[in-house]
């Protein structure tokens, strides 16, 4: 595939460096958010147990929506990443390949 692409040109292209920087930034920001949310949850369990027992509606404690919310939030984050990668990242890669290879 893409035999026309000159690898050296691609590497030296400023758009490629920008692409790498963008991708790494997104990956690390999302990783940091995921770590914060999960270890925030663990932190609540380790340090603020009574808070998680606060009743929100009837017998349901706030800890239950927080736990289920952590699961749903984690999935939503993977959704955000895939949305970004499918709409932005792939397009940037194609643009650079077209430019260098064409």
């Amino acid at each position: 595939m893409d035999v026309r692409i000159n690898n050296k040109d691609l590497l030296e292209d400023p758009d490629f460096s920008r692409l790498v920087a963008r991708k790494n930034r997104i990956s690390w920001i999302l990783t940091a958010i995921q770590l914060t949310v999960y270890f925030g949850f663990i932190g609540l369990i380790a340090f603020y147990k009574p808070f998680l027992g606060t009743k929100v509606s009837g017998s349901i404690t706030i800890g239950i929506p927080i736990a289920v919310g952590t699961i749903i939030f984690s999935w939503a984050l993977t959704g955000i990443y895939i949305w970004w990668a499918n709409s932005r990242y792939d397009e940037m890669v194609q643009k650079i390949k077209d430019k260098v290879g064409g």
Partner: protein
Amino acid sequence: MPQTTIGQVHATSIAFFVLFVLVTLAITYWAAKRTRSTKEFYAAGRSITGFQNGLALAGDYMSAASFLGIAGLVSLRGYDGLIYSVGWLVGWPIIMFLIAEPLRNLGKYTFSDVVAFRLKQRPIRAAAAAGSLTTVLFYLIAQMVGAGTLIKLMFGLPYELALAIVGSLIIAYVLFGGMLATTWVQIIKAVMLLGGATILVLLILNEFNFSYSELFSRAEDLYTSKFMQPGGLITDPVDAFSLGLALMFGTAGLPHILMRFYTVPDAKQARKSVFVATGFIGYFYILTVTIGFGAAIIVGHSAITSIDAGGNMAAPLLAEALGGTAFLGFLAAVAFATILAVVAGLTLAGASALSHDLYVGVFRRGVSAEREEVKVARIATVCLGIAAILLGIVFKGQNVAFMVGLAFAVAASANFPALLMSIMWKKFTTKGAVASICSGMILSVVLIVLSPTVWVDIFGMEAAIFPYKNPGLFSMSTAFFVGIAVSLIWPEKEAEEKYADLKLRQYAGVGAE
């Protein structure tokens, strides 16, 4: 004793199980004709779509221990069980953000391909294969002992016979059908498990007029409000963070999970499969919460613990109470299928570490005919299948619950740091990688042996030498530290120069297989 037919051989469970075996063996026969080259044996010819791989990843990851174990834990300990439901899921976004796409673009069949991409082949292959095999073996022992015990409880079959059935079936799947058959076994199992759990949750909600406030108020009436908040499961903050780290980054270092990313055609499908897998696994763990609380109310603690003190039979007892013996039979067959799918994935990952990394990468110095490699992989499959049966018999009656934790700790400490640094860090070297893998692997195993779980509970010593139950925090940070320090002290110019190739392939997919 509650009124239950668990442990008896039912016509329905046998019928569902025989049907599952017939269908999977038919698939294996079909797959066998498409399993000749290495690409077909290890990676199903890269013919699996992102959605299919997402389901297969879910089937590879959701073990019987997490289905029966977490439902049981929630039923007996309430909120404390939920902590595990959350912990088993949170590693998946990490796979998405840091691992899946580079792994797919840089490797061929195993994660060692990625670590060895710009480093010296032989030492890396040997170290990474040791990390893979250690993870796979601990996980395999836990699965096999769990399998024998569960099948004995549910079907009343003798322990050794249960292991022999599991062992022969997975040898048949992997030996003849390779990754293609394994994938479809995992997909079918995932659909059965998700379907069975969904029906069970609907039956539970039906009892409470589809109202969660009614369900939780009944739980509070029976077990007080303590049941809906964290109790004694996590007390020490260091242990809590350490366990969290191992669960999160261990998921991203499991060889049988990482291997699945090579079954899809490209990085785009790899990322799609993580999204699909995370959705299904998250949905499943949310279901286990309702199943656990439902079992606590409808079956009750005394009935659950009278069958199995650990609570493993909470979900089956509940299924019988709400759906009768037919539904119990279906769920028993699902549990059996679950075990088979996970063990098949582990066996294939172990076989590829032995053949692709050790035999071809180390012993044959990377030169081997396609046919020869497939043959070695097949021999390795049979050896591992037999080893799995024997290990299950050797560890019969032992407390092996800690081995799953150990597998995750080794994966997080030996496999994940080396994999991440080889992708992200230009100055990472061969010596650094080998030192990182070895230190992470040795430290996590040694610390678990010296921890209260093994030193006190199993060896019967008075006090543990290492005070925490989970070594992840210490072993993983040591692996990173050692990898960085060794790489900086002994730089490797060649590896640094090759980083340009890695970058092109990782970010733009240039030259990816």
